[in-house]
């Protein structure tokens, strides 16, 4: 038996091995992609119901006997009026059979506790509603909402069901009247946080994220670009520069929570900056994203061909003029791409902001960079911790909004790179 027959005998086995190896590789890629698909599907399927709000149509009597108001009442008087009572009266009128105290309380909980403020806002906007009886669409309680959306199964035995038979009967009576409506949940996008799942919205967190990110950009971009220019164009070869380079590489890999500790110990406790404020969050996030942007900016500067510099120097420009008039504009698109990626990273960051107290429950929508605020990822964290079932869908919806922003930012980065990419 010569060598070539020996090789031929082994060949089949080797090809099989080759095939298996290849399949193994493909499987791992597919598993990774599958995880991504499962993650996205799982979250979007949980999120979608949050964009629908259940409202109950009620005929509310806003007469002066009920509210003590008339068309000439001032806004302050209107604000002090008892709208809760008129809503309760309307519910009792709709279900006159309810008499005992406990049942009444259960009946009142059909509509959300926020309904009275909703009604108040409507009246403030249009005073002609006073002194007459009109129908209003009032936000339903989260249990009713869950039941309508099918999250609570009506066929379960009463003992296992969150909504008991009595309440279920009322809801079904309202449904058969056509008084239960499902509309797009604008409130989710336009209101701040709340303890009640049906009233909670992400606008506060969105504004907090906006202020934080804006300040982060303002602080990190100039500093990062300046460092990148210095390190690439001006830095002499010495110990200090080596130290800076090592530091930048290491900072890129420091866990984000350590930056939070830095923020807490230095900016809040030492410098006495306000807790929970976007500006402190921005300082911490800037320090955290600096290495990312510096590294990206440096490679953008490196990609600018030396001929450009030499031409500028050749016609008598100084080093500084060469860099600021010629190299920087050519490298700017690459720097911007790196910056957007850094900002996307900052937008999704949670842990360091937990450390500096941006984790508080904040109802008011922040108006400036020093108002207490929270950001989108922290809103997700807070809601994920809430025991109420209604917050589950809110959490997923907030995640979806966060992901949409991230996708937009990354798409913008890719677009910029493609559009301004130059082959020198």
């Amino acid at each position: 038996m010569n060598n070539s027959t020996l090789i031929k005998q082994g060949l089949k086995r080797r090809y099989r091995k080759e095939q298996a190896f290849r399949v193994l590789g493909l499987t791992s890629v597919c598993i990774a992609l599958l995880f991504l698909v499962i993650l996205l599907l799982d979250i979007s399927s949980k999120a979608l119901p949050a964009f629908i709000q259940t409202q109950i149509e009620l005929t509310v009597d806003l007469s002066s006997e009920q509210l003590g108001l008339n068309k000439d009442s001032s806004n302050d008087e209107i604000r002090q009026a008892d709208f809760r009572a008129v809503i309760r009266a309307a519910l009792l009128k709709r279900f006159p059979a309810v008499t005992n105290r406990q049942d009444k309380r259960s009946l009142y909980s059909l509509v959300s506790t926020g309904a009275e403020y909703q009604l108040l806002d409507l009246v403030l906007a249009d005073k002609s509603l006073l002194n007459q009886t009109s129908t209003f669409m009032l936000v339903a309680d989260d249990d009713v909402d869950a039941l309508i959306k099918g999250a609570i199964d009506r066929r379960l035995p009463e003992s296992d069901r969150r909504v008991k038979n009595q309440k279920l009967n009322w809801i079904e009576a309202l449904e058969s009247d056509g008084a239960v409506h499902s509309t797009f949940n604008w409130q989710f996008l336009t209101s701040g946080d709340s303890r009640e799942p049906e009233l909670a919205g992400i606008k506060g967190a969105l504004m907090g994220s906006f202020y934080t990110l804006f300040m982060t950009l303002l602080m990190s971009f100039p500093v990062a670009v300046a460092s990148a220019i210095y390190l690439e164009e001006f830095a002499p070869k010495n110990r200090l520069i080596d130290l800076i380079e090592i530091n930048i590489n290491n900072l890129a890999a420091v866990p984000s929570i350590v930056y939070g500790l830095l923020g807490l110990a230095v900016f809040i406790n030492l410098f006495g900056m306000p807790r929970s404020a976007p500006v402190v969050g921005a300082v911490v996030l800037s320090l955290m994203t600096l290495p990312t942007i510096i590294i990206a900016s440096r490679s953008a500067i490196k990609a600018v061909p030396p001929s450009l510099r030499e031409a500028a120097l050749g016609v008598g420009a100084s080093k500084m003029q060469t860099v600021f008039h010629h190299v920087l504009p050519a490298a700017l698109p690459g720097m911007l791409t790196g910056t957007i990626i850094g900002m996307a990273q900052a937008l999704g960051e949670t842990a360091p902001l937990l450390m500096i107290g941006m984790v508080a429950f904040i109802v008011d929508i922040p108006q400036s960079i020093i108002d207490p605020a929270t950001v989108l990822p922290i809103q997700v964290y807070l809601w994920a911790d809430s025991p109420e079932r209604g917050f589950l869908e809110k959490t997923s919806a907030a995640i979806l909004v966060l992901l949409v922003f991230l996708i937009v930012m990354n798409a913008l980065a890719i677009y910029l790179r493609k559009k301004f990419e130059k082959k020198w």
Partner: protein
Amino acid sequence: MSLITLIFLLLVLAMFTYFIGKQKIYAQYQAQPKSPGRRILTLPKYFGYVAAMWSLFPALLVWMLIELIEAPLINHQITNYLASQQIEVGENLSLYLNEIKNIEASHLADIEPIKQAIYHRYTQLNTLANNSKNVIVMAIALLMSIYILKRIKVDTAARKIFEKIIELILLMAASIAIMTTIGIVLSVLFESVRFFGEVPVMQFMFGLEWSPQTAIRADQVGSSAAFGAVPLFLGTLLISFIALLVAVPLGLFSAIYLSEYASVKFRTVAKPILEILAGIPTVVYGFFAALTVAPFIRNLGESIGLSVASESALAAGLVMGIMIIPFVSSLADDVLSAVPKTMREGSLGLGATQSETITKVLLPAALPGIVGGVLLAASRAIGETMIVVMAAGLAANLTVNPLAAVTTVTVQIVTLLTGDQEFDSAKTLAAFALGLMLFLTTLVLNMIALYVVRKYREQYE
């Protein structure tokens, strides 16, 4: 005068100085006799820039210095005032001062007279400090403007000075990296030293029990806090190990497939999609781990008769592993493509199949780089916070059972520092000691990894 007015005034002054400076140089130049010897060293605007910088920067520097010493100075004055009035504030002085500072003028009438008096003293001092600050800063800016406008002449090398200043500013920006590192080290070190003053280092490093809750009453059960961090270290290692067990094979094989086998088309589509995994915020993974993966694993375990904790290490580790797949795969991709083509071609030329080339030639050659990549991934896993905060437990169990609940260093840092905290207790200081351990561990891992990867690269360059 508010902050914004001060900034505005400074800027106006700087602009004014710019124009005057420019004008002065221009006039000097014009005044020279029109002969070939008439000269100016650079464009007039550079004289203006230099003048404006002289007007602006010293004032800003002094302003910053004043801001730094202002708060401690006022606190000191208030403390002196308290002592002179013989007001007892009890143990917590800083808390008391904070309370005074947070008094709102509109509610002043409702507050006890002593506090009112202190509040008045405080506002008085504050106004004084503010006014003197404004005056000092403006005076310096003005003096500097006058000085520089007198000094600059047509034969000043204005552009050179300007460029030197700009270069200095660039250097300062670059040094922020060093300042950050120093800040991190000092902030965790300082608090850690205080912590180790209360709890011996040995007890922290080798103690087997972790229960940081200090009881409010002395006779309560478990009133003495225990700060033995071994369960945390073990929990962190367990979860990171599970994560690496998922991420390393999947990431490595993905990298091999994408760089060696996949068609260009598949690669250009699959690679960015894979990178999305690294771009998803960790809080999203945490939510996914806590609400989808953990219940799934628990149900699966119960259906085959295993008891699984609802916050099992397995769920957190698994999801963390998914998160770092692209991290491993892109690093592996880098090192694989750094292996010289000649080695690959030599192996193929000898008749080896592609998989044989990969396993027998490429991987051994790329091994140091891959090890470096795995170390980087490990440091990422150890420092990961949100996934474990949301999906891992809080109880410090000393176990390596992946189905049990364990806690990690990062989880404890977050739980110790969020919510109400008194800053001086051992409980909050412990968080900084844990932070120090975390920082040192990841730093060492990164140093080793970067060193290994660099050595590996140099080998083939």
